[in-house]
């Protein structure tokens, strides 16, 4: 919205400040001036940004009222100037107006102007409009726009000769047709409010005038209308017909009940000025008292200055009297001055000092409660005139129950070289089906941004796969990412949220004595999972059961803590790679983070370090492929040798030609470390234990290599 400073000054004859100063002070009071531009008519054009609750200030008189309050200067009353009553050149009984929908239309004014000549506007209107960039249409129409810009009262001009009989404000008949000013044909419903003559609907009340009754170049006689409509009905009509107009914007937020007659006079005066002719008969002003009582005549509210102090606190101008009593800079004089300037009438309560019964201005329907007045006092007084104080606090800072676990997850994965990523909360239905658990369900979005974002993600793995693809398609050689976020299951009836975690890896993983180059990436991710899960209490194990379809067959596994599944990991399946146009293998892990967050972190305990030398013994065995390391480790552990510190695989060899090692078998070098906390181990006991280890390994089907 644009405001001309010269137009403002027309209402503020004593304004003591420059345009720039005015703009700054308005801005600091919430009537924000976003830009100041010079104009041809002198003064500045302000580009305004006014919050939606302040429709009353979205016009020149409204802004002028704010300035008057800020500088405590006189605001010229509209009803003495442009909005002063227009005398009739000829008397008659007045145009017949009937409000049928008395719950939806609170006030309706009408005035007849006869003998006009429709021509382009000149003078002040043309000057202001060109400075504002407002498109001129014709004298009478521009007069209504002028009224709107001046005081924010929507008005309308009808071609009087198109009307059949008097005006009726009524609900539309279901299916009633109406062609609007924008040329569109509308079919009305019984919930629409219309202004009609005796035979037909003329305009959609508070939204837009009608085509057939519009003022044209040949119009000779005009009816000027200004009214007050119920905000709800204008809002629903505006929505229903997809029409957002200046008029609907104002009415649906609450127009000034008392502005209709002033607005009508103002527009009538401008019509006479721009198109000649003469006002005939009195201003017809039909008022519905019930709605007047709810708006302009609404109950006074009580304002207590001690409540103002309680909510607003200390100002920079506070002072302390000799007896130690604190006096707020926001004293009663200031309070009275501010609210009066805004149009409130303050009546001091005789019973209690510092309390007022406040009559609220008709143009401020946003003011309803004491707190609304407190805000007005603070706003006009100036927010930056309040002191910076800090409230006392004796409470403790409580940690979120899972904060430690969450920190441990982030800390570990960052240290392992995984960068944190955040992906979209939404996935396609296809992805949700491919990555979600059908039993757990998934929820759809009712108004998705796109088809690809139609579902709430039931898994973080799909987003991770997509991010890996994003990187690989951009030739990023090595990708290590994790995401810690929410996953959504359930149904649209009840959506369940859980913490989820995904890891993703692509590119460069080194082969080792245990893992082939081909397996290295999967084992790197497994290693990351092992480090991560080791931070939590519980016994960790792995298997390859119940893996989801997005993991390539035979290329993944599952991690369990105390026997309960906590993660799956593996290479992305061929389908998922194809879906993302991937040629390079990727490994993805999905962790049930919720299960980790609710699990205690492992408490480290210290063990005495032995003074005695540890002894290593290597065992080289050939095992059938069916024997897994986890079985070997378990078996060696079960020997119950308390001096056995560790047993780990050191080297694995498979012979693709089946010569050195038969096909279906592999050779494994197991290194066992013995150490005692009390003594140097003797050759005899080492020999004995070695024999037991060998026996155990043989028991698993292994044969010792020479």
């Amino acid at each position, binding site marked *: 919205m644009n405001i001309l400073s010269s137009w403002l000054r027309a209402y503020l004859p004593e304004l003591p400040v420059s345009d720039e100063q005015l703009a700054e002070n308005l801005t600091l009071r*919430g009537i924000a001036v976003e830009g100041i531009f010079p104009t041809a008519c002198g003064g500045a054009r302000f580009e305004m940004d006014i919050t*939606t*609750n302040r429709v009353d200030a979205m016009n020149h008189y409204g802004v002028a009222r704010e300035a008057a309050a800020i500088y405590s200067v006189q605001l010229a009353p509209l009803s003495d100037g442009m909005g002063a009553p227009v005398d009739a050149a000829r008397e008659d009984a007045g145009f017949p107006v009937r409000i049928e929908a008395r719950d939806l239309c609170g006030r309706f004014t009408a005035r007849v102007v006869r003998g006009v000549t429709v021509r382009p506007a000149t003078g002040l209107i043309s000057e202001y409009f060109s400075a504002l960039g407002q498109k001129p249409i014709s004298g009478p129409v521009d007069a209504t726009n002028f009224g709107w810009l001046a005081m924010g009262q929507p008005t309308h001009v009808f071609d009087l000769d198109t009307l059949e009989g008097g005006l009726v404000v009524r609900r539309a008949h279901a299916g009633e047709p109406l062609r609007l000013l924008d040329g569109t044909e509308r079919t009305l419903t019984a919930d629409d409010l219309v202004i009609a003559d005796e035979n037909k609907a003329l305009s959609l009340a508070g939204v837009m005038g009608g085509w057939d009754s519009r003022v044209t170049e040949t119009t000779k006689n005009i009816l000027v209308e200004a009214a007050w409509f119920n905000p709800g009905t204008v*809002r629903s009509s505006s929505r229903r017909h997809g029409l957002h107009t200046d008029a609907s914007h104002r009415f649906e937020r609450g127009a000034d009940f008392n502005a209709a007659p002033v607005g009508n006079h103002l527009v009538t005066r401008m019509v006479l000025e721009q198109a000649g002719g003469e006002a005939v008969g009195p201003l017809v002003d039909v008022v519905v008292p019930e709605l007047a009582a709810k708006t302009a005549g609404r109950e006074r509210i009580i304002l207590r200055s001690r409540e103002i102090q*309680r*909510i*607003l*606190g*200390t100002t920079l101008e506070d002072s302390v009297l000799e007896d130690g009593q604190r006096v707020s800079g926001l004293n009663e004089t200031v309070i009275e001055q501010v609210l009066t300037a805004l149009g409130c009438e303050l009546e001091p309560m005789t019973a209690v000092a510092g309390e007022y019964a406040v009559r609220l201005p008709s143009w401020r329907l946003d003011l309803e*409660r004491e*707190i609304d007045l407190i*805000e007005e006092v*603070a706003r006009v007084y100036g*927010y930056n005139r*309040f*002191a*910076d*104080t*800090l*409230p006392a*606090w004796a409470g*403790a*800072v*409580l*940690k*979120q129950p899972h*904060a430690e676990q969450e920190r441990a997850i*982030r800390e570990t*994965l*960052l*240290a392992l*070289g*995984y*960068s*944190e*990523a*955040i*992906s*979209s*909360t*939404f996935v396609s239905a296809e992805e949700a089906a491919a990555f979600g658990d059908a039993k757990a369900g998934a*929820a759809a*979005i*009712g*108004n*998705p*941004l796109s088809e690809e974002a139609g579902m*709430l993600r039931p898994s973080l793995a799909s987003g991770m796969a*997509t*991010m890996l693809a994003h*990187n690989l398609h951009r030739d990023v050689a090595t990708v290590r*990412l994790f995401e810690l*976020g929410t996953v*959504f299951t359930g149904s*649209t*009836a009840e*959506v369940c*949220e859980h913490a989820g975690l995904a890891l993703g890896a692509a590119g460069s993983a080194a082969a080792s004595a245990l893992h082939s180059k081909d397996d290295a990436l999967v084992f790197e991710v497994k290693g990351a999972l092992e480090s991560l899960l080791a931070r939590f209490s519980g016994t960790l194990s792995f298997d390859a059961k119940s893996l989801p379809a997005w993991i390539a067959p035979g290329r993944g596994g599952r991690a369990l803590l105390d026997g309960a599944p906590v993660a799956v990991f593996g290479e992305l399946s061929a389908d998922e790679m194809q879906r993302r146009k991937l040629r390079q293998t990727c490994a993805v892990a999905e962790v049930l983070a919720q299960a980790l967050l609710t699990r205690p972190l492992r408490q480290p305990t210290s063990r005495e370090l032995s003074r005695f030398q540890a002894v290593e013994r*290597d065992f080289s065995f050939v095992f059938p492929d069916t024997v897994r390391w986890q079985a070997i480790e378990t078996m060696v552990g079960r020997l119950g040798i308390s001096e056995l510190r560790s047993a780990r695989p*050191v080297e694995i060899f498979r012979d693709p030609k089946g010569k050195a090692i038969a096909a279906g078998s592999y050779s494994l070098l197991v290194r066992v470390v013995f150490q005692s906390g009390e003594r140097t181990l003797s050759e005899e006991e080492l020999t004995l234990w070695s024999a037991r280890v060998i026996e155990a390994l043989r028991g698993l089907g292994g044969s010792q290599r020479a």
Partner: protein
Amino acid sequence: MTEYIIPKLPGYDSSTLDAEFQKLAAQVEEESVMLATDDGREAFRLHWLGRKQGRLKLISDAWLKTAPNDKKGAVGQRFNELKVQIEARIGVSKLRPIVDRLSQVEKEHFKTQAIEIHREKQTELVEARRIRDITLPGVAQRIGAEHPLIRTMAEIVTVFERMGYSVGLGPEVESDFYNFEALNFPPNHPARDTQDTLVVAGQDAKPGRDRLLMRTHTSPVQIRSMLDQAPPLRLVIPGKVHRNDAADATHSPVFHQVEGLCVDTNITFSDLKGTLDHAMKAFFGSSVKTRFFPSFFPFTEPSADVQISCIFCGGNGCRKCKHSGWIELLGCGMVDPAVFEAVNKRSIELGREPVYDTRRISGFAFGMGVDRIAMMKYGISDIGLLYSGDMRFLEQFA
């Protein structure tokens, strides 16, 4: 001289090699008693250094020559050390009779010379081992990068934790009641429109307040927290929120907020000002100034927007602050009494005591966009990068 066999090397890793060579070194020391006599010395030499059957020759054949190529270095190095040790033993014993015949002065002289030679050798050795180019890059140790949003959010939260605020969290899928109704949004407020809010499908059959949607702000956690806890409370609420915004350089349907709530008896607007001024100084530096503008939010009254003096130009005006010297950073206000009333009403519905007496209790709330702050702080021009998982972008924050 006893028969000996060279055992097979059990492995090539360094600890195995060390162990095996240490055994040999121990034998050298053990057998060096033979060096006392000339015959003994010759026998020792033949035993260890004999061309055909010397142990070193056999070790070389059995261990060094058969070692895989990548292990030859490790075996060879230890082999050479053993050889040096043997030669040194023999050398010293050869000199012994000569040394015995020297006068004290001559001994001192040779000793000095020996030390000198030793020093020279040492110097040569140091020179030989000198790292030729220390400016070569180190062996890469990749560490993960903290996400700039997570990092910024944590920094903001820390500032408020130090001011006595506990962390509060809430769900990302909310009901209309928590996201709008209890926060004093009127039934027809534009934010409730599906043009602004992403809603969960299939909600039409539910009562309005129970309809599920993606929370559009972290403010519903205010309501949840007040329903759970009686005053006083101080909460800082970080979280992810969603809006029906098409993605562009400054908009994303997913973004992050940090919300704050302080409720107690006698909490005032000047407390709000002081708290945010303090927090902004703690976050951006003590020279940062704040200023407050009237604004409008349904759940606060009075409401304010807060600007900070531009952190790039110190308030003189630059491109980043559009030459105004100020940057708009957060929204805030005094908790609207209607919000307390909504909490009380809900408490009664849930069969609990209403504990937010608006005659005694007051509070303030504030909220800020983490994405915008992170983008400003790190000079990120496109919000989409934050949600792309692009390694090239993320690794800058490692």
